[in-house]
């Protein structure tokens, strides 16, 4: 390891990154992804377009309509039309749910005869339809409670939402997105700058010069590592100020974990660049290797504790899960270094990075194949 040579190579990389405008990559792409997905993914459902067909037109039915109108979850319209026309409206995707109140609703319910309210929900977006049906059940239960039903002996539930009291979508999505972009952007950049030398033939400079493999890799990777390290802070600022995330944990842990994680991502890119001979192949292979685990096996969309079998094992093989655990902890939970899980995951990330780097060093050849 000769520092002088590493420094020269590092400077050459930086100048090249600036000249080819690739320096934008570690900043523009992550920010774009975090902002678009952060604002774009909404799991909560509000403003369900509901059509109520009131065939009863009585006091109770009007009370029920009022309940729906006052809820922020529904945008209601009350209309007189036939069921067939209403179904056609749902087929045209103009409304999401139809509620049909039968004609003798008040009479029967006062007499205590069971009446059925018909509910039709557009389930072409399945998870949304489940939520909508839960909402409607809630409103009807609420209405029933108003008509003093004997509630003695009823089991109460006292629910506490830990970590994300308001159940905001941003608090749930954005930390996961950080885990995604800090994997993708360094990995692609690393894969690219080595594949680029291969494609353009400048890799022969490396083959024929007395630079050692280690020096070559350290110089190349540290240039990207330096750029992405700055990006960590930029993304942190976006998350806390633009998306208004709380930060409950230790910043040092966040920073340390992020640096280790970026190191791991560099290792990913390095391995890809050894296989890939052209830039386009490098991009595609990295995307395939990173996007799916970052989305599906990270605990962002689906909690790790709910996974079973293959998915559980796959999740533990990729590094994303460990980083996401730490990052959700630092943003929302706040155990920091007190939790042994956090520390063991931190060490795991570091070990992962070292292993990938050594593998890269092993497989990188300083000669023509």
């Amino acid at each position, binding site marked *: 390891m000769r520092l002088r040579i590493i420094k020269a190579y590092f400077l050459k990389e930086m100048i090249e990154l600036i000249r080819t405008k690739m320096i934008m990559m570690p900043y523009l792409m992550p920010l774009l992804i975090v902002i678009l997905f952060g604002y774009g993914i909404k799991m909560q459902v509000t*403003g369900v377009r509901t059509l109520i067909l009131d065939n009863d037109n009585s006091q109770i039915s009007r009370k029920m309509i009022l309940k729906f109108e006052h809820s922020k979850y529904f945008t209601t319209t009350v209309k007189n039309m036939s069921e067939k026309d209403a179904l056609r409206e749902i087929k045209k995707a103009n409304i999401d749910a139809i509620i049909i109140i039968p004609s003798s609703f008040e009479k029967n319910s006062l007499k205590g005869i069971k009446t059925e309210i018909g509910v039709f929900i*557009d389930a*072409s977006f399945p998870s949304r339809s489940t939520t909508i049906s839960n909402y409607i059940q809630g409103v009807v239960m609420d209405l029933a409670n108003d008509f003093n039903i004997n509630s003695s002996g009823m089991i109460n539930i006292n629910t506490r939402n830990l970590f994300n009291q308001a159940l905001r979508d941003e608090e749930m999505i954005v930390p996961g997105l950080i885990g995604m972009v800090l994997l993708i952007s360094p990995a692609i950049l690393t894969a690219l700058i080595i594949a680029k030398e291969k494609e353009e033939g400048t890799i022969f400079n490396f083959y024929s010069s007395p630079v050692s493999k280690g020096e070559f890799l350290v110089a190349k990777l540290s240039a990207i590592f330096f750029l992405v390290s700055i990006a960590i802070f930029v993304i942190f600022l976006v998350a806390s100020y633009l998306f208004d995330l709380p930060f409950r944990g230790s910043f040092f842990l966040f920073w340390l974990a992020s640096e280790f994680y970026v190191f791991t991502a560099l290792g990913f890119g390095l391995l890809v660049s050894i296989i890939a001979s052209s830039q386009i192949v490098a991009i595609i292979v990295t995307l395939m290797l990173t996007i799916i685990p970052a989305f599906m096996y990270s605990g962002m969309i689906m*909690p790790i504790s709910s996974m079973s079998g293959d998915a559980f094992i796959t999740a533990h093989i990729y590094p994303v899960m460990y980083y996401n655990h730490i990052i959700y902890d630092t943003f929302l939970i706040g155990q920091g270094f007190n939790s042994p899980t956090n520390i063991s995951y931190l060490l795991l990330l570091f070990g992962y990075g070292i292993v990938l780097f050594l593998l890269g060093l092993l497989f990188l050849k300083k000669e023509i194949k």
Partner: protein
Amino acid sequence: MKIFITILLKELISFFRSFGLVILVIYFFTAEVYVAANGMEIEAKNVAVGVVDKSAGGMSKKILSNLHSPEFQTPKFYKSQKELSDAIYNKNIMVGMIFDEQFEKDYYKKLNPTINILIDSTTASQSLMAIGYIQNILMKFNNLELPVALKMHKLFNQNADTGLFMGVSELLSVITLLTTILTAIAFVKEKESGTWDIMLLMPVNPKIIILAKSLSQIIIIMIGVVLSVGLILFQSLDVPINGNLLHFFILTFFYVATTAGIGLFIAAVSKNIMQISQLSIVIMMPIIFLSGAWTPIYAMHPLLQYLSALSPLSYYIEGCESIFFRGTSFVDLLPYFGGVLILGVILYWYGFRKIGKLF
């Protein structure tokens, strides 16, 4: 006409010869769609529950026996509340239930017993659904005689199976991305490998070259769509088709032509494949974002709602969902056809002009 067909065939042959691209296209149309359909589960399933039970145990056991698969895992028991909350903090479990000493006595005395529930709400939607399930289970124990019953009908997808929806919507995103990238690559590859000059020297009307080249990519995508719909959607995912499949293919053809227009524009302004990949991400992201694929359009900010009218994908997604799931008749599909066609003509014409200037 003969020239047109020659160029078309040349493009098709050179596509099938580039091994990497063929693999890429096949991968995206099959594996990617399949994985998305099977892997993305937004519904709460297999939720890990932890329990601290300080009551005598009869009633709480009865309640807990109702927590079973597919919604819940078998509950894990913890000795103290401290252990339970540690397990939640370390994300070993998602929902914690605490039955206190009074629980059973209160239940038989009809004194409104209380169950304390702690939820890890870092995954908000799943935790909400899990609470919904628990509430439904407790309803059974409450013996409420409600005079009202709700008769729920989930139209078009009775079991609310997420896989069907995810499969279709992933296919649509794959079509969007691949069409832009393939069309752009068809041109820029010539720039990169230096055969662009040969193209300029050819005694052929540049318009024919552009048309033939973009049509060749459209054909490739259409083949991919047929494969994907036949093999993945119908064979392995069992997606229903309530509408007319022909309508879907016609709509897809128009839409692919539209995105090919965007591809032409990208090809005109980028010099190499690197720039294509960057530009297409920058351009396609907002189009996908505004399309209503993630958030329904009516739930967006009002300003964004107007903007979403400019995203061709928004018409295409609604149209395809209507064809596959809602089984909408052709007359009611016309707005989607109209939207895609109008935007398509504008975008293709613009891309055509833009790349035509390079000749």
